[in-house]
């Protein structure tokens, strides 16, 4: 049986490939958000895969996902989505800063605690996004799609988290 992934703050990594893995998976999540998945229920609103990746890597390998990569992922997402530029970057950067400041709470705990933390983060992110988008358009937007997206994001987190843990294990094996 494999040992569970232990969060490591500073670790010597071998190779550029490993060090780029968190950034690469985050950008992969950008594409997963915009590519038409043709899944029932996912059609209109897709979960924020990028937020999941940012959360995951900020907790387990904060050293490997620089702020610049977070910013760039948000910018690419807005460019591909046709969204006002900067909104996703802003949400993701603040999310990352928030997670980094609270990281000690989650490190060393089981998945339930980490998931609960993500529920909090997703809620905060969606409220912030709703506020800023409402400000941008100068009208109070219907909050329901935002709530729906948050629920979808939280409920699909375990799957994405599992995949990211697989990637991370591969990364540790190589190291």
């Amino acid at each position: 049986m494999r040992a569970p992934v232990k969060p490591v703050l500073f670790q010597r990594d071998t190779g550029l490939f490993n060090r780029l893995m968190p950034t690469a998976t985050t950008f992969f999540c950008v594409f997963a958000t915009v590519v038409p998945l043709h899944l029932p229920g996912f059609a209109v609103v897709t979960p924020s895969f990028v937020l999941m990746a940012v959360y995951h890597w900020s907790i387990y390998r904060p050293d490997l996902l620089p702020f610049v990569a977070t910013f760039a992922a948000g910018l690419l997402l807005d460019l591909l989505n046709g969204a006002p530029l900067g909104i996703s970057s802003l949400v993701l950067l603040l999310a990352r800063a928030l997670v980094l400041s609270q990281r000690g709470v989650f490190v060393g705990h089981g998945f339930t605690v980490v998931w609960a933390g993500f529920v909090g983060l997703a809620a905060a992110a969606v409220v912030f996004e709703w506020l800023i988008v409402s400000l941008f358009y100068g009208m109070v937007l219907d909050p329901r799609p935002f709530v729906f997206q948050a629920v979808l994001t939280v409920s699909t987190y375990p799957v994405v988290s599992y995949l990211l843990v697989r990637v991370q294990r591969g990364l540790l094996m190589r190291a």
Partner: protein
Amino acid sequence: MRERAGTVSRLALPVRAAAQRVALPFLIFLSAMLVVLGKADILLFDRARTSVSDALAPVLDAVAQPLGTVAAGVRSVEDLFSVYGENRRLREENQRLLQWQEVARRLETENTELKGLLHFEPQDVHGYITGRVIANSGGAFLRNVLVDVGAREGVERGQAAIAGEGIVGRVAEVGSRAARVLLVTDLNSRIPVVLDSSRDRAVLAGDNTARPRLIYLPSKATVKVGDRIVTSGSGGIFPPGLPVGVVASIDNGLVRVEPYAELSHLEYVRIVDFGLSGVLPQSAIPMPKAPKGARRAPDTEAP
């Protein structure tokens, strides 16, 4: 040499940490600036968007194609389970449509005869450009899709996009090989429409829900659930008479329309090439960056 390398690596960690500390406020400020500048509709942003869509269109296309095939496979398995009921429904529908065909044939003959009497000249012949949906915005406040046809294929800003039975939206941005279609459900979508039965004009306004609203409907207008909505052609951008949807609900004067097109499962859309130049004088053809008011063609105003 060796000593220097050692110094560099000793220095690297604090330097990196300091850079990270500076990076956060700087990047947050940069993002906020982008949001504020974006409010001013800067041309550069539009260009950046179209060039990124253009550059990534082949990648997105390559991913979207197999995913579409998988989805089609899943759907055909689903269809197997409903074959019996579907068959019966189609038989009934066929019966009904045969009757309609009869009516249509009769009307067509009558129409041709009447047109002959009036020396009527056909207004416009439109062509279609079919594109595959290669990306859709998954945000909570965005309803648009990216299609893999662009200026190369003759797509122009403002053209109507249709899928299946009805209108999907209009082309909002055009790159050389990709175009973004703003769906009718988007917050920024406004489409001049007309109630098919009463000929009352209105504007179909998206609000991010699945059913857009009818606004600017005359107060004396009689509207009821099930009324058919088609494009009015006001503004000269859309051809008149394209099917849009049916009135789904009327609640306290708030009229909501159920679009004919299934917007949640778009795989292909057809861009309608209105052939504006044949209908309007050259000066009335909308320029890509013209302000909204200037798009209005004087000779297609509402009577």
